[in-house]
């Protein structure tokens, strides 16, 4: 298994063990230049541990890892000088202003003050925060802080941007603004590596992704490929009155390719959702609500793990 020379990040049997748990258990993946690559999985799946190993702040326990053609174990600072990192929790300096946060971060990358100032000014423009330039960080909204953290991660013009749950906790409007900025970065040729437990985020941003569960990679592909492979084109969601779902046993069999019983509803995977719905009606079933939708990564995850992504 030789490393494809084209890949910016190359991992084989990558493993991270802590005293009492294995956070990442022998994962393999490659990230190509210019790609937007995602780790999709629930909390505790090992996404953040993987990101920290790529970011050279967490030594691997086992396996191979190369980032930008170098080994994080021996070339940490050199690799980090070419990475941009957006951690899961904002680590902005609340004692400093918006502009000063960028300025000192530029200094950490050994930029001159003149260059750091210029980059900071450009980046505040890019993330639409120039009006808050001289404000302290604390009164900023969650979305603004996130954008500032992204700007900070870009101060060194990184080749790879590592984003750990970039939009968790943001309202829909703020999320779309972040997505839009990340999409622009991707267009500029920056390689994006991100983790998320939002299927829509993965579908919006990722060219390719791996699904992680319990420290392992359970599937890999483009969002479309994964949906085609693990789900049907459409999903019929049926909600029954309280107590009825438990009495259904077998009555839904054969309505679609597969039937999934969730605590609050039944999912029928079918090529034609409408047809499945009328077939259910013909069988005399009277659900409280009927919904036909396109299948999503959520369904892929459910298929692979038997659980939903966001509980």
């Amino acid at each position: 298994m030789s490393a494809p020379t084209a890949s910016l990040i190359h991992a084989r049997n990558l493993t991270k063990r802590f005293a009492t748990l294995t956070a990442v258990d022998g994962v393999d993946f490659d990230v190509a230049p210019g790609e937007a690559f995602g780790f999709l999985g629930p909390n505790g799946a090992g996404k953040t541990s993987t990101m920290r190993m790529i970011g050279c702040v967490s030594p691997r326990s086992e396996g191979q890892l190369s980032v930008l053609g170098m080994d994080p174990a021996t070339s940490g600072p050199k690799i980090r000088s070419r990475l941009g990192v957006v951690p899961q929790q904002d680590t902005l300096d609340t004692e400093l202003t918006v502009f000063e946060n960028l300025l000192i971060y530029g200094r950490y990358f050994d930029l001159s003050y003149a260059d750091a100032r210029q980059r900071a000014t450009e980046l505040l423009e890019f993330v639409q925060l120039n009006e808050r330039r001289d404000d302290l960080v604390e009164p900023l909204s969650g979305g603004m802080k996130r954008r500032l953290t992204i700007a900070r991660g870009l101060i060194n013009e990184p080749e790879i941007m590592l984003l750990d749950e970039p939009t968790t906790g943001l309202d829909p409007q703020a999320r779309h603004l972040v997505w839009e900025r990340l999409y622009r970065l991707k267009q500029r040729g920056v390689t994006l590596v991100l983790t998320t437990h939002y299927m829509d985020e993965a579908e919006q941003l990722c060219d390719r992704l791996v699904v992680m569960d319990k420290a392992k990679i359970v599937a890999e592909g483009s969002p479309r490929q994964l949906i085609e492979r693990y789900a049907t084109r459409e999903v019929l969601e049926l909600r029954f009155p309280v107590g009825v779902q438990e009495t259904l046993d077998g009555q839904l069999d054969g309505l679609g390719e597969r039937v999934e019983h969730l605590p609050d509803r039944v999912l029928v995977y079918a090529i034609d959702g409408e047809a499945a719905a009328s077939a259910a009606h013909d069988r005399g079933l009277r659900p409280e609500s009927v919904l036909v939708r396109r299948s999503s990564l959520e369904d892929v995850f459910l298929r692979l793990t038997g659980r939903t992504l966001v509980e």
Partner: protein
Amino acid sequence: MAIAGVRHLEHNLIVYRRVWRGTAFSTVLSPVLFLSAMGVALGSFVPQMTTFGGVSYIVFLAPGLLAAQAMQTSAIESSWPLLAGFKWGKTFEAAVATPQQPRDIVLGHLYWLFVRLTIVTGVFMLVMLAFGAVASPLVLLAWPAAVMTGLAFGMPLAAFTATQTNERAFPILFRFVITPLFLFSGTFFPIAQLPDAIEPVAWLTPLFHGVQLSRSLALGQDLDPLRLAVHAAVLLTLIVIGTLLAMRTFRRRLVV
């Protein structure tokens, strides 16, 4: 490439540029209060100190307080603010995602303590001068002695702080370590006044060495080179060991 640790110092100076006015008041007020209450008011009850060549109490007291002030400043700088960098603001986590390494943060903290202690003890010495609590031009040498005293506390404490998951230990540390040292390390009275059994214990405390060094130099008395060298060596050893230990504990905390 910059000198290791300089970036973290720059960070603290950028913060300091914003907050120095707030600290300036207490930096001046603290020596004024102590020297007037203990030095002038209490000192008026203390006869001329024959053991120290007949100087007045305030002249005896001031260099001791100088060293103690350095210890306290350094202890404060190396406890809550550092834990904030690890835990509350996580700014150290942000720093090590760049080419900066844990040891750069430790060195930066060492430089920062040096700057901060030089300012605080420098102001203290100006206040001493204003109170006429100066006996010899050698008093200028008490300045670096006090800075060393502060570093000898600050760096080992920095190493300790990196091992803490919460701030619970700090009040205990101040109550049961810093305050007793302040009171019983020869700051306010010569340790010869302590019961004989306890006197040797004073020799084990870093503040004692800092106070002795500052006082001997400030008063220009008792300048036995060997004794001064021992005091300085104890402080230097603590600074070096503390710095090396902090590099270890910072790495353990930040690279996991």
